[in-house]
């Protein structure tokens, strides 16, 4: 087992573990902690996959902005920061649904070689060309989404008198 594989294995276990922990712990603030670890962990995986640009983005947007947003949300909606949430939906049915989904997904694993495959390495500049070029209005789209999202979100949370 190569070093990459070992690292990946560790990161993978951590990812699943933190993801689960984030969704299962009862303290909401702990959730935020776990989920930030989860985001960082994924960022590490991206670095491992030779996609440093994405790794950085993941760190910035997810581990940074999104985590802060979520924390902010929890703070605003809770009287006390360390309030608990009862996971009332815990039961065999959601577990079974999630498990079966997983089983179906793993069903396709057999089609791929279990031996390590060489990774493609891309030039980040090629990526930026792709993103900002005129061939694909990706960012334009993203812009529209953000515009409507932000405009609407502001409207929603504004304490306007009607």
């Amino acid at each position: 087992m190569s070093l990459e594989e070992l690292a990946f294995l560790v990161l993978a276990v951590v990812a699943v573990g933190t993801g689960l922990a984030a969704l299962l712990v009862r303290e909401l603030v702990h959730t935020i902690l776990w989920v930030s670890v989860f985001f960082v962990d994924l960022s590490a995986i991206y670095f491992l996959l030779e996609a440093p640009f994405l790794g950085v983005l993941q760190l910035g947007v997810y581990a940074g902005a999104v985590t802060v947003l979520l924390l902010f949300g929890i703070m605003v909606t809770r009287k006390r920061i360390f309030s608990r949430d009862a996971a009332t939906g815990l039961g065999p049915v959601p577990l079974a649904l999630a498990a079966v989904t997983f089983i179906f997904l793993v069903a396709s694993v057999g089609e791929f070689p279990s031996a390590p495959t060489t990774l493609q390495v891309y030039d980040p500049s090629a990526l930026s060309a792709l993103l900002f070029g005129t061939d694909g209005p990706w960012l334009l789209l993203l812009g529209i989404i953000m515009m409507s999202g932000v405009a609407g979100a502001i409207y929603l949370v504004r304490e306007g008198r009607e």
Partner: protein
Amino acid sequence: MTGLPVADLLVLSGALLAVGIFGLLTRRNFILILIAVEVAMNATILNFVYFAAFAPTAAGLSGQAIAVVLIGFAATEVAVGLAIVLALNRIKGTINVAQATELRE
């Protein structure tokens, strides 16, 4: 560089998706649901990234581009979700989705 096995990554993303779904189904706090969605979303982004990495040709680069866009999109989604959370919290005083069942048969 020796690289990584595709299958393992597939299992990882599958597991993350399952975790996200599980969380979505079990939690009643809107923010937690939001987090569950994000966990699943990360599984998706991970998929794009590693399929880009394992792509046989350079065309796979678009996978990374997609991942970038998705990260941006996910952030917007969280923002919108939070806006709804806050508005809901203001009106109903709770963000427990199990208590918002006024619209039903």
